[in-house]
């Protein structure tokens, strides 16, 4: 009897991990840009499930896990930003920076973009990432996040305007 209960619970978590682990990991990797942070996010999201700190909405487990992945990944971005700010203020002399190559430029661009996305409201950030990282349509995003298509379209428009403002200087460099 105990065994049956144990395996049922363990199987449930395992099947959720198998079904949605990739979604969470891909999202975290896309936002944080590196494997270590993506693994930490995946672990944190599933730890919440294991502990049932936040009981997932049974009807929309995918939406819950996706939101948790975005929020946890953006928290990581914010933490890294703080750490970098502290490091810079602690350095007496800036090291001589070599001219950035393409991969360094891409990394810098990615970091700036997600630091800007981290300044959006959580639901706006979730929508932007679903659209541009996962290539979802307004209807698909609406279904996943439990809202209407109109609301998604409006939020996407506002989020883009805000991102353009936040990234204005960097975007102009490219023009």
């Amino acid at each position, binding site marked *: *009897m*105990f065994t049956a*209960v*144990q395996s049922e*619970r*363990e199987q449930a*978590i395992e099947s959720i*991990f198998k079904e949605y*682990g*990739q979604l969470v*990991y*891909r999202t975290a*990797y*896309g*936002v944080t*840009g590196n*494997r270590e942070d*993506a*693994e930490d996010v*995946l*672990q*944190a999201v*599933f*730890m*919440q499930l*294991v*502990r049932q700190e936040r009981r997932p909405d049974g009807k929309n487990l995918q939406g819950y896990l996706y939101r948790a992945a975005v929020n946890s990944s953006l928290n990581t971005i914010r933490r890294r930003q703080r750490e970098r700010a502290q490091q810079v203020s602690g350095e007496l002399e800036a090291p001589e920076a070599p001219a950035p*190559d*393409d991969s360094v430029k*891409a990394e810098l*661009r*990615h970091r700036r*973009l997600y630091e800007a996305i981290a300044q959006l409201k959580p639901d706006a950030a979730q929508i*932007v990432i679903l659209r*541009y*990282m996962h290539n979802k349509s307004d209807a698909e995003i609406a279904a996943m996040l439990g809202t209407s298509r109109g609301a998604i379209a409006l939020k996407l428009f506002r989020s*883009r305007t805000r*991102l*353009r403002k936040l*990234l*204005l200087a960097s*975007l*102009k460099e*490219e*023009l």
Partner: protein
Amino acid sequence: MRASNKNLNQALDRWLSQSPSPSLADMQSSLGHVWERLQPHIVGIRGIREEVIPASTDIRLRWPWSKIVLVAALTAAVVLVAPMVLIRTLRPGPAPAIVQTVGSGLSRTDGEKSQAIHAGDQLAFGQIIRSSVGDAAVVALSDGSSIEMRPNSELALESADDGVRIRLSRGSVIVVAAKQKKGHLYVQTKDLTVSVVGTVFLVNAEEAGSRVAVFQGEVTVQGGAGSRKLSPGEQVATNPLMKSHPVSEQISWSGSAAAHLALLPQSTSPAFPRLEFDVATIRPVPSANVFIRTADRLRCKGADGILTTSVIRFNQMISSVVSDVPQGRCVGRNVDPISLIALAYDIPINQRISGVPISAELYNIETEATDLSTVTKEQLRQMLQTLLADRFAIKVHRETNQGDGYLLMVGKNGPKYGPAFMETSGEEEIFGPTHDASGQSVVKGKFRLKTFAESLGLLDNLSGPVLDRTNLSGIYDLTLILKDAAASGPRGAPTSPDRRFDPPVSKAIEEQLGLRLERAKVPVEYLVVDHFEKASEN
């Protein structure tokens, strides 16, 4: 203004469409790793729920009446047994482990939150314990056993049916297992389980596989198809491609390395007696001279030949004057510590030694063995390790990962023997890779194919090490000429792997030498320097 907004929108679209995405293999590996890390927590939760869940099971409401009697009987059994289980589980007992000694970098995590651990802190089952890159730590179990963690290791303690299980997901531990009154102490990695009743042993978990070495007593190792017992001095690895290294080197990071090695039978301990130079002079090169960056190769001459760094860092000019080395000595001017480490630990320099400050000083080195006429290359190599430990306070460990690399193989029409590829004899002598002003890079010298492959790995447009799979033995005069793409094509030619030269490296090798390069997943061995100081004065 509208046009400007349009341009900005287009730029934003470009930014948004370029999120990095993991490769499928990396993602699978990460998912597996995280699932492994979650295991102790899932088991932990399950343990607590054993007492709770049966009482709240509502499934039984849908059961047919005919089963009610059975349910009642089982429920009664639960009511009787559960308190006993609860009492046993909740009875205050000793914590499974206490941190004994620790540097500044041990942490534990219960999943989301990570917190620092200090000496004297108690550890609970299921917590993930991580040692930082520079700090080892010792954890004492309540049964009297101790676990010494290498820097950059990760483990969790779990309750096993008949003892305690140490789940090692990364790094190395040396376990001094107390005599178990009943049951076993287990160490588990992703591909093996070690069970003991009282002994001293090392377990190492790497991406490519795991290793076990025994110093005292006997352990049973289970993995893959079967199990085997190991005695003192014996070691096994789960992946046959992993290189074997002396146990003395594998535990050089340990504060008790000498004590553990002393447990080994003399015949199985290559580290005894300690091999060291009779005379060793190490002088830092005055910093005013460092900018010259002309590195002389450190060379040692043993009775069985010359020992020298197979390759030198690409950004350094190499002195073309090869000075003679007297028998039984090691000599080098302006030696970069990385070259010294590479020679001592027999590892290629190319991005595979980490932890040495780039700005480390250069040194003039002259050493002399006691027995000048009979000392061998291998003995000189071990003496260099002793020198690094004594004078640079070095502590190292090796890690083997599966990574992208290349295999150097014989082309379909066989080697193109001729002026560029000629069998010869004598010692290896390597010149290059070197660049010249005409946009030409040359890899030239007297090589074993293994060394030639290592030299190719130095070319920064190959994205990984090159392993020799030519099956050609002997020493060859080899010359490979590579022309920069920029010299023959438009400026700003792409710098992605294998495209900077025209023709690319793989084609040049095939055309000039009749060998071919094939992309492959290869075991890549890294030497991680856990601790390194400036050389102490003579």
